[in-house]
């Protein structure tokens, strides 16, 4: 016959074992989870780089890049009236030493303009040992996080060696890792002891539940007499004592910290970068997604108002890059960097200065499927978007946003 307790314990052990075996560390931040049209037509990141992918605790890493707020912003997504440049990491593996948008400090939330380009720089200091997939990230109020390209970064060393010292405007140098903690814990212990004494004062007066319940019911309206004058005196001392200690602690803290300021909450507006198109105009003529070939094919009318011939070198959208290796080359930075090194080709050749020309481009790669962009044709808003990069013979780059309806080709 089965022992009931043993059976329950065995079932629990099996359950815990299954959960432990099944649970895997989170390796991504949902970069594939949002609908394709949202990823392609909101924030388009490019030129994102990290200064190093291996560093020790207390060493610094710099992440740089650019982002473009897509001109055909989905109407169901809140516009970036209030947004905050962030970093996607699992907890404070790094501290953010500084962040800049077009050279302006990004400590405050910011308003951005649709259709404009900004560059960013985030300086991070390694705090604890970990191997993390770190993303550039833009939080947009009422829209949510718009995630940028990610990089695997490995931090080694001991978190105990980490310090985060700053000097206040009152001249004191403090370590933010521990600052104010002893004082706060001291006060919590002080009040905790008083609270415990007050509770124990009652609990150790013998059995308190059944006898007191019976007495309350027996005495009825006279039950208040159960509270003795001595009990009330204890209450009075506790009330006066609490008010005296709180008052003293309040004024003592003011004496210790005579200069204090409220929490800061300002917001800023940062001017955009100059137009990255540099005189190249593009008009979308036609775009189709060929399902069997996993290929985006689009035809564009390009007008070159620069002084040099230009060629199409790259298409990027939703943090994926399709490269035309004859014009521009790039390789994946790590195993999770979606770069199709030979993913792009086009017909039409160079566009001469002053010339207007039709170019037909094809962007092919399994990333359309693995990054769930092919699902665009099943989205409620089947319009695509992205950036195309033109290069002249000297390597100068023109970045132009393109987008429009996307027709699927199933056969």
């Amino acid at each position, binding site marked *: 016959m089965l022992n009931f307790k043993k059976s329950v314990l065995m079932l629990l052990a099996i359950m815990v074992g299954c959960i432990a075996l099944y649970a895997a560390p989170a390796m991504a931040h949902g970069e594939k989870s949002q609908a394709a049209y949202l990823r392609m037509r909101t924030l388009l990141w490019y030129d994102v780089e990290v200064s190093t992918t291996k560093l020790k605790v207390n060493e610094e890493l710099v992440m740089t890049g650019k982002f473009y707020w897509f001109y055909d912003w989905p109407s169901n997504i809140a516009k970036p009236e*209030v*947004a*905050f440049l*962030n970093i*996607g*990491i*699992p907890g*404070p593996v*790094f501290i*953010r030493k*500084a962040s800049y948008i077009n050279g302006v*400090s990004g*400590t*405050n*939330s910011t308003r951005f303009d649709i259709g404009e380009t900004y560059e960013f720089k985030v300086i991070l200091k390694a705090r*604890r040992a970990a191997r993390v997939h770190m993303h550039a990230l833009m*939080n947009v109020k009422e829209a949510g996080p718009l995630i940028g390209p990610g990089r695997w970064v490995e931090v080694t060393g001991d978190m105990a060696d980490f310090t985060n010292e*700053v000097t*206040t*405007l009152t001249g004191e140098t403090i370590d*933010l*890792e521990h*600052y*104010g*903690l002893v004082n*706060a814990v001291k*006060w*919590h212990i002080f*009040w*905790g002891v008083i*609270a415990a004494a*007050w*509770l124990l004062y*009652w609990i150790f007066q013998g*059995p308190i*539940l059944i*006898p*007191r*319940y019976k*007495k309350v019911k027996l005495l009825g309206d006279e*039950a208040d007499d159960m509270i003795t004058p001595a*009990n*009330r005196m*204890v*209450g*009075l001392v506790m*009330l006066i004592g*609490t008010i005296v200690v*709180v008052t003293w*602690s*309040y004024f003592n803290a003011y004496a*210790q*910290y005579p200069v*204090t*300021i*409220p*929490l*800061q*909450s300002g*917001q800023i507006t940062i001017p955009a970068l100059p137009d990255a198109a540099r005189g190249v105009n593009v008009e979308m003529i036609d775009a189709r997604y060929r399902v069997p070939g996993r290929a985006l094919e689009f035809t564009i009318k390009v007008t070159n108002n620069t002084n040099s011939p230009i060629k199409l070198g790259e298409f990027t959208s939703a943090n994926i890059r399709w490269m035309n290796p004859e014009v521009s080359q790039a390789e994946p930075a790590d195993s999770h960097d979606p770069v199709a090194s030979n993913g792009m080709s086009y017909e039409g050749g160079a566009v001469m200065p002053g010339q207007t020309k039709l170019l037909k481009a094809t962007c092919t790669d399994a990333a359309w499927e693995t990054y769930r962009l092919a699902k665009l044709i099943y989205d409620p808003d089947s319009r695509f978007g992205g950036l195309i990069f033109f290069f002249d013979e000297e390597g100068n780059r023109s970045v132009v946003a393109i987008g429009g309806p996307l027709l699927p080709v199933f056969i």
Partner: protein
Amino acid sequence: MSAVHSVSAITTAEQQHRIYKAFDWIIIPIVVLVVIGAFHIHAMLTIGDWDFWIDWKDRRWWVTVTPISLIFFPAALHYLLWENFRLPFGATLACGGLLIGEWANRIANFVGWAYFPLNMVVPGEIIPMALCLDAVLIISRSLTITGVLGGMLWGIIFYPANWALIAPFHVPVEYNGVMMSVADLIGYNYVRTGTPEYIRIIEEGTLRTFGEDVTPVSAFFAGFISVLAYFLWLYIGKWFSKTTWMKRI
């Protein structure tokens, strides 16, 4: 058979005392655990970030929201313990339990799992408010007076009781050309992916303040609403402490 049932197994006063004491030792720990769990969930859902983060503890919203939200359980426990047992420690029991839950959560989750520094996530101090509420009850022996005087004191005393803890975090710092408080800087330094700066609901400045300081207005408002909330939750406490099915004890 009926004669057998009418004979109690307890035959001496000493036995009765032992049984009553054992009942205390069974029930009180269960009540404490239930209070810790229930009050903690309530606090996380209604106060949440205001109590989690040092850079949310502002002088307007934190001061207003916390006392109003936290008086619910003390009021309900006041009714339960006072009306049935004439025990005046409902507020201290609730707030002490909440702090045990909060400290366990901050140390295990925020520091142990997510590696935030502990000074960033120290919970607000609420014991002085609870002591005052209990003290007014035992002195006055009246839930009505406790609601009016104690409720107002509960709201007013919250900010002064916490200033000793948070004042160091309001010292100004110049950082990358911007003036911030130490608390702001901690919030900026220690990256929170899902909690961007704009999500903070803190004082943003308004024309409708007395002079420059908004705290007294917020504290009195919190006290006023705490009075109303106290009476509302007395009734909820009454509803939860019915003894409909207990015919005799």
